[in-house]
């Protein structure tokens, strides 16, 4: 990951350039297949190990829709559908509206999806649709949707996509996950990436504080700066714990509450971490030239994607109100540890 995504490559990708070679390299390593279950012909990687890879995506600010491709590949394998090779992305299910109807031997799909990661570069766009007899995965090849380019706070491509098209019967297949399930899975993956990004902030900031001298000594020697560094390390630890919690709940029956707690907690910690990292860096960290914003801006963007704190905290809150034996019992039921 470190070799594939050196500083110049990350900067090219972060300005919106599609890194075709890097994508092929990552695909060739099989990383996009990490979430395909063994029963569906995948490598059978434990979600915790798949999470380790995604944490590196956050750590190195990999400017590719790897989380979407991993989740999409898992859904695709589950559905038994085959698609053409090339970059694949997944539309955020809560930002997607699809009207599906049978037409002749196939389907007609009409609708739109907002904030699709790298929609402009995708050879295949995957959508979750609610059909009469349950959720379906819809595979749209490039050319059958139009793209209006957009970006998140970090400048990562998030495109609005429209479609009004006939599809062959094979392009729509039932899956076992609802739009809510896929949304939660996406939230879990963003939580994992966030942990990687905050870890990078900590490393960059420690390095800077040890090297940068003011008043005749490294700024890391000032107690006020040390207090900020200690708080930053705390946010990194919280994000890591949230990441482990989310990874463990990924695809688990009943995993939604744990993911909700983890995504909301990590989002809040990430914003504080970004603040502290910038505070320690001072003005240099606010420049385009310095790399800090590659991470701090992504963290601010990722806390919004697949549900922000307002959304997930409300879900945890409702779960508490619904928990007849109270909040503590809810925590011990859902805050699960490895067994």
């Amino acid at each position, binding site marked *: 990951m470190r070799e594939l995504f050196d500083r110049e490559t990350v900067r090219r990708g972060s300005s919106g350039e599609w890194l075709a070679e890097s994508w092929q390299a990552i695909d060739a390593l099989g990383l996009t297949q990490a979430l395909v279950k063994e029963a569906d012909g995948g490598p059978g990687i434990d979600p915790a190990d798949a999470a380790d890879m995604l944490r590196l995506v956050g750590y190195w600010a990999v400017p590719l829709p790897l989380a979407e491709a991993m989740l999409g590949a898992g859904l695709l394998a589950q559905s038994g559908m085959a698609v053409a090779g090339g970059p694949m992305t997944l539309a955020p299910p809560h930002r997607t509206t699809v009207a599906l109807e049978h037409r002749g031997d196939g389907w007609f799909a009409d609708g739109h999806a907002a904030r699709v990661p790298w929609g402009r570069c995708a050879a295949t766009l995957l959508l979750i649709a609610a059909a009469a007899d349950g959720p379906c995965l819809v595979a749209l090849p490039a050319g059958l949707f139009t793209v209006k380019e957009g970006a998140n706070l970090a400048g990562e491509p998030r495109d609005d996509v429209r479609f009004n098209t006939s599809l062959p019967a094979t392009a729509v297949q039932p899956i076992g996950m609802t739009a809510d399930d896929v949304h939660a899975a996406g939230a879990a993956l963003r939580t994992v990436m966030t942990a990687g990004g905050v870890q990078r902030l900590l490393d960059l900031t420690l390095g800077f504080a040890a090297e940068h001298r003011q008043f005749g000594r490294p700024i890391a020697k000032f107690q006020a700066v*040390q207090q900020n560094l200690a708080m930053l390390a705390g946010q990194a630890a919280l994000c890591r714990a949230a990441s482990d919690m989310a990874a463990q709940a990924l695809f688990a029956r009943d995993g939604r509450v744990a993911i*909700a707690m983890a995504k909301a907690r990590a989002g809040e910690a990430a914003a504080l971490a970004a603040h502290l990292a910038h505070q320690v860096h001072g003005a240099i960290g606010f420049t385009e030239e310095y790399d800090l914003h590659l991470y701090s801006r992504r963290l601010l963007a990722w806390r919004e994607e697949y549900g922000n704190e307002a959304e997930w905290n409300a879900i945890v809150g409702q779960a508490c*109100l619904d928990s007849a034996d109270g909040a503590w019992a809810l925590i011990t039921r859902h805050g699960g540890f490895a067994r």
Partner: protein
Amino acid sequence: MTAFDFPYPVMTAEAEALRSEVRAFLDEELGALRAAGQYIGWTHADPEFSRKLGARGWIGMTWPKAYGGGERSATERYVAIEEMLAAGAPVGAHWTADRQVGPLLLGHGSEEQRRLLLPGIAAGTCYVAIGLSEPGVGSDLASVKARATPVDGGYRLSGTKIWTTNAHLSHYAVVLCRTDGEPADRHAGLSQLLVDLKAPGIEIRPIVDMTGAHSFNEVHFADVFIPEAMLIGTRGNGWVQVSGEMGSERSGPDRFLSSFAVVEALVRRTREEPTDERRAAVGRLVGHVAVLRRLSASIAEMIRNGEDPTVQGALVKDIGTALEQEIPEVARRLFAIEPSPLGEDPLAALVGSTLLASPSFTLRGGTREILRGIIARGLGVR
């Protein structure tokens, strides 16, 4: 990467079975009070309650059976204590003995000291205070002035300890004092003595805190004879022993659950008067507790693996105690209550008592500033 290692916490079927057992016991013991909207809090000392826990084998749970322990797993102990703290069970009488003194004696104590104290601690009948700080010393423990002068057969201890929690209820105290060298030697020359609080020359004066409660004391030692056999571990090694003890003191659920009763009360009140803002605010607090609990449990795992949790413990306590202080503030932003410890409204009463106790959360067991200094040292910048 500079990440601190936080191993995956582990849960076992035995521990979950124990959880149900502890929860049922607490429902029976505290259910009536809870129904009346009353909450005790874990710092409250109730010797009768401690004896009941001892009878059930829930003190000294991981210690060898030879010393009255239960030889149960660290995971089981973690589950039992988190259940007690979340329920606000009055565990104050035996708490420091169970949390710190037992492990200290098992690590550094003599066979005689273990036999003398551990069975009573595990039974919930023997309580032990910790004498660390002194007037004018504050957090700078290396500058303690209490002095134990070697004499025939032991030591003569003189000095004053302050903020000694529950000394007035305790049978023994573990006292950090200088046996060798001068104050300028800092960490070198400090030792830990096990002091029988009934010994002649000891005076225990109460210090009433701002909530009106008496748990702190000032303890004076005037030429108190301490037998040689009551030196804990190695003479002059006191600082190392104390530092190890602090790691386990700082990481436990007692460092983020002190205000948890307020969260439960908020859930109950929000059920009656729900709004979107309240739902989200309650959910946020519960998520914060859940993620911290994971970090805290992972430290229990470190202790089990024989790793040094000093830095991780400081980190959990720093974040956990800030959360403990934030919880009552969130409560009063959500509901138009007037916090009052003696109020009839259960939420207002809880928020009132928690707000008054709140300054102590980021002071006891290491102030926030000290903790962040420990974390900074762990990061390699100090």
